[in-house]
């Protein structure tokens, strides 16, 4: 399986979960740099975690689904840009703790350049209806991308005890009841951790 992943540069679904992180191929700095540039450049719609999942979990197997979920959750528990937080917190999983800071530059610069151009355009008073039309399409595709990632996370989530309860309560609390995300993460996370606590061998 490892040989296959290295040959094709792509992992199977099972391989991504089983081999990534601890046993996965160590990506070179150049590979990581290019992926960080790609995520910083192409994560249109302000959703870099989707692209991070696609590139690092699905395509390259650098992270398992559990690694991704860990970076996702810790990134959201901390204040600030969830994408930056998750990229930093995922960095040691793909074995580059020090260059993580360097890799933030290619991740951040494309969006910053775009934001500065947008600022200048808005300051000039220009209105571009086509951008707003494009946003309709991008927004709809964003829904599909997030829904697809949810499908992908399902097999890994099912390995937890009371997974359906944790997933359902998290969904209802945030999407239906509109409760604060931090409170939901802490409360449901604590309950799920209790259900999945380390058990002594019999």
């Amino acid at each position, binding site marked *: 399986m490892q040989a296959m992943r290295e040959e094709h540069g792509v992992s199977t679904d099972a391989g991504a979960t089983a081999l990534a992180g601890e046993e996965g191929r160590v990506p070179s700095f150049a590979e990581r740099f290019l992926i960080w540039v790609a995520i910083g450049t192409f994560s249109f719609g302000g959703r870099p975690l989707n692209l991070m999942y696609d590139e690092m979990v699905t395509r390259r197997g650098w992270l398992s689904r559990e690694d991704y979920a860990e970076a996702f959750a810790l990134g959201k528990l901390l204040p*600030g840009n969830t994408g930056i937080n998750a990229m930093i917190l995922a960095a040691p999983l793909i074995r580059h703790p020090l260059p993580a800071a360097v890799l933030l530059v290619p991740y951040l610069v494309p969006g910053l350049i775009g934001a500065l151009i*947008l600022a*200048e355009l808005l300051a000039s008073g220009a209105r571009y209806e086509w951008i707003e039309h494009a946003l309709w399409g991008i927004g709809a595709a964003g829904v599909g*991308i997030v829904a697809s990632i949810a499908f992908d996370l399902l097999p890994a989530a099912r390995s937890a005890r009371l997974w359906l309860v944790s997933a359902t309560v998290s969904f209802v609390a945030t999407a239906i009841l509109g409760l604060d995300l931090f409170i939901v993460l802490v409360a449901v996370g604590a309950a799920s951790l209790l259900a999945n606590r380390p058990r002594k061998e019999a």
Partner: protein
Amino acid sequence: VDDVLVQVGLTFLRLGLLSVGGFDAVIAEVQRDVTQHGWMSDAGFARVYALSRILPGSGSYAVVPVGHAAAGWQGALMAFLAINVPTTLLAFAVMAGWNRIRANAWPRAFRTAITPIALGLTVASAFVLGRTSIHDLPTLIIAGATVFLMQRTRLPIPFIPPAAGAIGIALGLLR
């Protein structure tokens, strides 16, 4: 030192540290601060926020046009740095600590425990996004086609938003 520049820095420093869960969690607070300072109107900020969604990366890039409106290019960079640098340093500190303990039993249990919650929150994101982004048959078809393409093909994500954006533009021209 320019007073407005200091105000921009302090405002976005505070908002960054409050933004647990991401920039979207404090968007109402951002809008209130921005309009109170007179840097933008409510409608102006709403437009900036919507347009910033087309940018790659984080939604927090919306602060750049706000900083620009307040204090030009310096304000734009100040807003960007103030909202991101302190929280990024905090993330690095947490990473260092977490990395030391993550092989232990409890952090490993945390990984197992948090995955179904990530699933629930991801479904919630799709649901909430869908309420605002799926408003007619064409947008429903775009979302459904995206799920199909991602599940059944290995089409890379970067191809999808530009294609969907082009469809949006075409539909806009037909309306």
